[in-house]
C-alpha cells in the first residue's frame, strides 16, 4: 500500500478516536449545560466524574491529528490554516476555555456561585467547539475554500458547512448521552440520559438529512463520492444499520451494547466522510497524493507513529482499566 494512503488512514484513525473520546467529552459539556430536573446536580457530578481522569488524554488525539497533517501533508495543513483562519482561531478559543474552565472548576471547589460560573464557561465552550469543528470539516469538503485571498469570511460560511457544524454538535451530544447511561448504576440517572440520548438521536437523524440535502449543491464532489463510490456507499449503509441498532438497544435499555453501537456509528460516519472525500484533502485543490511529503519523510513518520502506538495503546488500556475498577479504599 502506498505510504500516503497509510498515513491518510492513520490521520482518519486519529480523527475517529478524537470523535469517539474527545467528541464525547464535548457532548458531556453540552449535557452539563442542559442539566435539568430533580437530579440536575447528580447529572453534572456524573459528567465531571466521567471526564476528570481522561479529558486531557482524549484531547491529545486532536494534537496528534494536527501533527500528522503537517508532517505528512504539509501543503494541506498550510492551505487549511490560511483559508480556515477565522473558524480555527475560534475553535482554539473554545478548546482553551473548555479545558481551563473544567480544571479551574475541579480545583476551586469553594463557592458554589464561582463554580457555577466556571461550569457555564466549560459547557458554553463545549457547545461552541464541536460546532466549529464540524464547520471546518464541512468547509474542507465543500470545495469553496480556494486560496483564501478573497476575504476572511468567504469559503467556510456556507449553509452546507453550517449544517455539518450542527450535525457534529448533535452527534457528539448523542454519543455522550449514550456513554453516560453506561457510566452509572443509578437507574434514575440512566433514564435521564437514556431520554437525552433518544432525543439527541432524533436530532442527529434530522441534521444528517439536512447535510445530505445541502451536500448536492454545497459539496458537489462529496455528493458524487457519496452516491457513486462503492466504498463510501458501503460505509454509509453500515452507518445506517448501526444507527438503527444503537437506537433499538437504547429503547430496550441494553446500555453497555448501546455504547458500542453508538461508538461504531460515530466511527463509521467519520470514516464515511473520509471515503466520500477521497482522494481530496482540500476539495478541489489538494489530494492525498499532491499534498504528501517526500517518501522518506513519510516512511520515517510511519515508523515514529508505530513506536508511539506501541507506547500509547498499552498505557491507554491501563488508564481505562484503572478507572473501570472500583476504588481500593473509600
Amino acid at each position, binding site marked *: 500500500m502506498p505510504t500516503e494512503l497509510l498515513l491518510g488512514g492513520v490521520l482518519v484513525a486519529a480523527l475517529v478516536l478524537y470523535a469517539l473520546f474527545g467528541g464525547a467529552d464535548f457532548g458531556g459539556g453540552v449535557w452539563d449545560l442542559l442539566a435539568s430536573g430533580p437530579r440536575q446536580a447528580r447529572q453534572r457530578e456524573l459528567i465531571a466524574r466521567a471526564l*476528570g*481522569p481522561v479529558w*486531557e*488524554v482524549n*484531547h*491529545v488525539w486532536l*494534537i*496528534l491529528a*494536527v*501533527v*500528522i497533517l*503537517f*508532517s*505528512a501533508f*504539509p*501543503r494541506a*495543513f*498550510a*492551505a*487549511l*490554516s*490560511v483559508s480556515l*483562519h477565522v473558524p*480555527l*482561531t475560534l475553535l*482554539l*478559543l473554545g*478548546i*482553551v*476555555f*473548555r*479545558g*481551563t474552565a*473544567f*480544571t479551574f472548576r*475541579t*480545583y*476551586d471547589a469553594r463557592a458554589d456561585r464561582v463554580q457555577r460560573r466556571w461550569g457555564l464557561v466549560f459547557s458554553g465552550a463545549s457547545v461552541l467547539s464541536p460546532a466549529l469543528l464540524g464547520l471546518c470539516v464541512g468547509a474542507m469538503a465543500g470545495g469553496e475554500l480556494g486560496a*483564501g485571498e478573497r476575504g*476572511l469570511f468567504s469559503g467556510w460560511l456556507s449553509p452546507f458547512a453550517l449544517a455539518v457544524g450542527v450535525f457534529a454538535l448533535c452527534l457528539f451530544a448523542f454519543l455522550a448521552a449514550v456513554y453516560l447511561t453506561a457510566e452509572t448504576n443509578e437507574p434514575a440517572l440512566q433514564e435521564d440520559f437514556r431520554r437525552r440520548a433518544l432525543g439527541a438521536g432524533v436530532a442527529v437523524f434530522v441534521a444528517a438529512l439536512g447535510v445530505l440535502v445541502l451536500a448536492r449543491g454545497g459539496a458537489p464532489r462529496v455528493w458524487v463520492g457519496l452516491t457513486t463510490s462503492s466504498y463510501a456507499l458501503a460505509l454509509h449503509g453500515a452507518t445506517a444499520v448501526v444507527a438503527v441498532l444503537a437506537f433499538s438497544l437504547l429503547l430496550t435499555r441494553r446500555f453497555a451494547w448501546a455504547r458500542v453501537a453508538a461508538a461504531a456509528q460515530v466511527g463509521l460516519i467519520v470514516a464515511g466522510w473520509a471515503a466520500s472525500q477521497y482522494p481530496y484533502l482540500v476539495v478541489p485543490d489538494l489530494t492525498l497524493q499532491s499534498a504528501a*511529503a517526500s517518501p*522518506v*519523510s513519510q516512511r*520515517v*513518520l510511519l515508523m515514529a*507513529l508505530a*513506536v*508511539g502506538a506501541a*507506547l*500509547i495503546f498499552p*498505557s*491507554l488500556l*491501563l*488508564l481505562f482499566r*484503572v*478507572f473501570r475498577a472500583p*476504588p*481500593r*479504599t*473509600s
Partner: protein
Amino acid sequence: MHVMDLLYARAQMGLSLAFHILFAAAGIALPLLMVLSDLKARWTRDPDYTALSVKLAKGTAILFAVGAVSGTVLSFELGLLWPGFMGTWGEVIGLPFALEGTAFFTEAVFLGIYLYGRDRISPGLHLFSGVMVALSGAASAFFVTLVNTFMNDPVGFTLTAGGPVDVDPVAAMFSPGWVHQTSHTLLACYQASAFAMVGIHALVLLRHPGLAFHRKALSVALPLACLSALVQPLVGHQSAEHVARAQPVKLAAAEGLFQTQRGAPLSVGGLPDVETGTMRYALELPRGLSLLAFSDPNAEVKGLDAFPRDEWPPVTKVHLAFQVMVGAGSAMALLALVTLVLRWRRGAWPEGRRMLGAWLVCGPLGAVAMEAGWLVTEWGRQPWILRGVMRTADAVTPVGSLAVPFWTFTLVYLFLGVMVVFLLVRQVAGTVPHARAPHEVAHAH
C-alpha cells in the same frame, strides 16, 4: 500583506510561547518533585511528604491543563501564523513533533492515573505512574527543543528553487548543537520550577516561621534548585561556545560586539548603540569574550560588521535579554553555592531569615532566566525563521487583520495567568493555619 501584520504575528507567537513555556516547564519539573516527595514519604514514613506530594499533584494538574491547551494553540498557530514555513518545512521537521506528541500523550495518560488513581491502584503502580509522567514530560521537552535547534541550524536536506529535496528527517532532527540546546532547556525547566517552589515556601516560612510542612517542602526542592543552578552555567557556557562557531551573528548581537577583533573583550551590562556601532556604559573585561567563546584570549571573534546589515538581529533586545539571563543565572548559582556551603557546615538546610529572604528574592529568577534565554535564541535568529534559508517575513500568513487574534489571545492569556496564580495561592494558603499565630498553635498542644 501589511507590515504591521508581521509584527502582530510575531507578537502573538511570542506571547503564546512565553506563556506556554512557563506551564510546560512546570509540567516537566513538578512531576519530578512530586515523585521525590513520594519517595521521601516512603523512606521516612512521614505523612507530611505524602501531603506535599498531593499538593504538588494538584498544582501539576492545574498547570498541566493550561499547558495542554496552550500547547494545542501553538500546534495550530504554526499554521495559522506561519503557513509558509509549515507548508514547506513541515515534512522535514515533523518527526520530532510526532515524537513529542507521543511523549505528551504518555504524560497525559499517566498523569490521569497518578492524579485520580491514588486510592485505586497499588502504591508501586502509583509511583511508577509518577515516574512515567516525569520521564515523558522531559522527553516531550527534549523533542520540541530539537525543532528549535533545527530552526537555528537547519540541516538534513538539499535546498533547491522548488524547496527542499533529499530530505533526511533524522539528520534534521539532530542538527549540530542539539546536545547543548536540549540539556540547557531541560535544566532550565527544572531550575525555574525548583526556584519558584523554594521561593513560595520561603515566603510562607518568613511569615509563619517554623511550619514543619514548609521546611520539609524546602528540603525536597532545594537539592534540585541548587544542583540545577550550579550545573546550568557550565552547560550554558558550552552552548555559548557552540553558538560562537555555528551562529556567530547571534553571539555578536548577544555581546554587542560591533567590530570583528582578536582578543575581544567581554561586555558586562551596557547598552549597544546600533546607529554609531558602539557599546555604552558597559563594564569591559579585556579579552574575556575571546577566552570564553574560543578558550583562547587572542582568538578572533566575528563582530556584527562581518554580516550584511539586513541580516542583523535586533541587537539591543538580544543583548539585554542575554544580560538578564546571565545575570539571573549567576545570582542563582551564587545563592546555590552559599546554600550548599551552609548545608555542609551545619548539616541541615539553612532556614535563617536572611537565607529565606534571599531565596524569596531569587524565586522568580529561574523563570526570568528561562524566558530571557528563549528570547535570546529567538530574537538572535531574526530575520530568519529558518536561519539562512527562510526569512520570517516570507513565512507569515497572507491573512490580514492579525491585530484581532493578537489582542484576543493577549487578553485570554492575561486572564488565565491571573486565574492560575489565584488558584495556586489558594492551594498554598490551605497549608497555613488560619488566624492562629505559631505560638498559639504550640500552646494548643
